[in-house]
């Protein structure tokens, strides 16, 4: 879109003498010392210049340069010297933000029919992440202690996206009924042991898809989360447990997803008169976190718009990415974020929730920021102007004139998405 790249060769200027005038050894020595000096000076592998940096954790909201070295953020400052970088990307007119975090996905993809765990109802993370600015996804309980190792081997270790997980309290995760209903398939002990074995990947526990009226699984998930000092993530499909009771059973820091759902099996947060239920607001004030969890049925403007106006903005934009949401109103994380842009949330507020608040909600303060020394997960976003429509789970749309687009995504210092080639060289005839 713009003149893309300035590559600084190690030796930029030719010495202004002819070689014949000087002994060869001197030339070699000079060149070596010169190149060594300049190359040493190139301490950054990547420099993103002139973008509008939004880094809510560090209260940065202005035009800055972002320098990357060794896969980490080396510096965020105005006017960093371009000659210090091997690759320079001009991000003028774009927003530069921490790599986005999608805390609600189903990515334990496999080849089994009609199932999420190891099945075709989940999706491959890399197919969706980088093209929407996402560098970290959290899988929401698709696996349990029995099949987490398989998930890790099959997907987590083979993906470029950083994949974290809420561990389902049911041992086989979302393998489908009846295993998801069988309380004998639960083991707090094994779940806790699994979390302790993979503390860098498992960020909490998950309860969902349980149709019984017993509180045993819910409370087991809650207890396990508490023991592990991690949040509980409450998924959908708990028809016999009322919303109010669920919220009462949760601790501050626990996450209620599908916040703006309007389906029969769970009371919606906004009542028939369009009023946000007071107990929901109280739960929020008590520290319960509300995630969008858009999915195929989890996001309705008739809930989200009044809830937003009455003080229940989402803490995170989990998309509930899976096979049945990907091609419907959800589409991808930026589309969900753009819905809130259209509903009137400020861009800063949106980035805050998609990065730093999401990181804190999963107790990973190392993520979702551009602090010096942090892993260099970066999104370069543009705001498209035009006439756009955004569709909810009820197939109703709102219209707006702004939409977020991913121009470039950097994961651990590597460019993993570049929509318009802003990091590439121009083609020239040879």
């Amino acid at each position: 879109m713009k003149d893309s790249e300035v590559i600084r060769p190690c030796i930029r200027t030719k010495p202004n003498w002819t070689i014949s005038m000087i002994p060869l050894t001197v030339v070699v020595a000079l060149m070596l010392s010169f190149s060594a000096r300049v190359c040493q000076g190139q301490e950054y592998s990547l420099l993103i210049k002139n973008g509008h940096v939004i880094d809510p954790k560090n209260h940065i909201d202005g035009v800055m340069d972002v320098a990357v070295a060794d896969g980490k953020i080396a510096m965020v400052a105005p006017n960093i010297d371009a000659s210090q970088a091997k690759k320079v990307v001009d991000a003028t007119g774009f927003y530069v933000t921490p790599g986005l975090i999608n805390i609600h996905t189903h990515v334990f993809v496999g080849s089994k029919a009609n199932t999420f765990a190891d099945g075709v109802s989940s999706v491959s993370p890399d197919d969706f992440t980088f093209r929407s600015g996402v560098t970290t996804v959290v899988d929401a309980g698709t696996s349990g202690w029995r099949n987490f190792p398989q998930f890790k081997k099959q997907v987590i270790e083979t993906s470029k996206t950083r994949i974290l997980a809420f561990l389902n309290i049911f041992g086989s995760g979302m393998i489908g009924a009846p295993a998801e209903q069988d309380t004998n398939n639960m083991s707090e002990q094994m779940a806790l042991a699994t979390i302790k074995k993979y503390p860098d990947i498992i960020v909490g526990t998950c309860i969902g898809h349980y149709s019984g009226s017993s509180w045993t699984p819910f409370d087991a998930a809650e207890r396990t989360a508490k023991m592990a000092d991690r949040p509980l993530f409450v998924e959908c499909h708990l028809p016999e447990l009322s919303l109010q009771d669920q919220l009462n059973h949760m601790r501050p820091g626990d996450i209620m997803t599908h916040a703006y759902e309007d389906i029969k099996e769970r009371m919606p947060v906004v009542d028939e008169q369009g009023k946000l239920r007071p107990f929901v607001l109280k739960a929020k004030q008590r520290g319960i976190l509300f995630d969008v969890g858009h999915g195929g049925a989890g996001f309705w403007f008739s809930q989200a718009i009044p809830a937003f106006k009455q003080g229940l903005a989402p803490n995170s934009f989990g998309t509930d990415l899976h096979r049945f949401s990907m091609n419907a109103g959800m589409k991808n994380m930026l589309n969900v974020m753009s819905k809130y842009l259209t509903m009137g949330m400020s861009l800063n507020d949106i980035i805050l929730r998609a990065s730093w608040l999401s990181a804190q909600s999963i107790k990973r303060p190392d993520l979702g920021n551009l602090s010096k020394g942090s892993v260099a997960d970066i999104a370069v976003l543009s705001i498209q102007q035009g006439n756009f429509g955004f569709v909810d789970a009820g197939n109703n749309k709102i219209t707006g004139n702004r939409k977020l687009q991913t121009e470039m995504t950097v994961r651990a210092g590597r460019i993993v998405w570049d929509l318009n080639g802003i990091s590439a060289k121009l083609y020239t005839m040879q």
Partner: protein
Amino acid sequence: MRFKCDIIRRKYLFAACFLAIIGLGSLHRLNAQQVDLLLKGGHVIDPKNGIDSQKDVAITDGKISAVSDNIPASSAKRVVDVTGLYVTPGIIDMHAHVFYGTDTDSYLANGLHGVQPDAFSFRSGVTTIVDAGSSGWRNFRQFKKQTIDHSQTRILAFLNIVGTGMYGRYEEQDVTDMNPVMTAYMIKRLYPDILVGIKAAHYWGTFTQVDSAVAAGKLADVPVIVDFGEHHPPNSIRDLFMVHLRPGDIFTHTFSSGPRNRESIVDDVTGVVKPFVFEAQKRGIVFDVGHGGGAFSWVQAVPAIEQGFRPTTISTDLHTESMNAGMKDMSNVMSKFLALGLPLQEVILRSTWNPAQVIHRPDLGTLSVGSVADVTVFNLQKGDFGFVDVKRKTLKGHEKLVAELTVRAGRVVWDLNGISTPLYTKPDTYR
């Protein structure tokens, strides 16, 4: 009308309702409302039928029921205003790898490098994907059961001449597993509706594999698609085109520039398209794009297009190494050809009717009345865009195709901006 009728049905017998409607003189309108979905006001490009103008497209029972001027909106249950947009046959991506699976030792046969088709197809306007030889006769049934039967995208396939498909480079060298009889048998007798041809690829020898594939192609009466050139020094593509392949057979990765064991169609030194390439096209050899992660370079494509060469078919070679690189998706690859100077009509032709003919599926890639209603609605975005090749070089362009709406067998399966959905209004009960 349907709503009114429903209410009446609840109160009276069906016959009473029917008579009442007749009494109201509405029978004509009910009958007329036989169109399920009407795409109104778009610019239709249907190369097979020579249509390139503003027309309405009517869909009934999953099929195209009419393409003409001014089909009345009252005749349709659902009307989508597509004014300012282009309406084309559903796009065919003739080269992709979608035999996704979990065998971590495998490359593209039940392996992690294939992708889930529905994750990429509809959002880029594609309704038919042809898998390019990820499976062979030994594992095609698994591919079908695992992927094809569970995808909304229409999946067709070239069967690899190697029995184990693209399991890995080593298995792909096994000449004893290149069995024309078994390959042809599976195509012709078992799955003639899915298997459209035979793939030869990744072979380190000379012409043995291609000749095997062509032998199978003759037995099954289907085309062969060739990913050619992993022999050092390079095998002659002139011999491939003029001696080994038949008219109708396909050369993919047309604009590949290297690696060194692969001969290119444009002379690397002079930048001139080799004369035998045009002769091969005259002979009936099909040239497919097959962009991929390593097979599309501006140094080949720019001079070739400038010198009048045209690929027969545009395709992605979609897999995990191409999806997030310069390739991205089918509509991005199509847009590259706009950036290269091809008119939109030619780009659509090479992504619809041409591939349909190449794979002997003239039922696809058209908007003929009676055809399955696979339809794509594109927005031709104007702006400053960059398109990256496999050598990480950017070519600028000012137009980009974006899939607004995709219809598969009459069902809306992608709607970027909700043009087929109603506006949200506050529920009546809200204060």
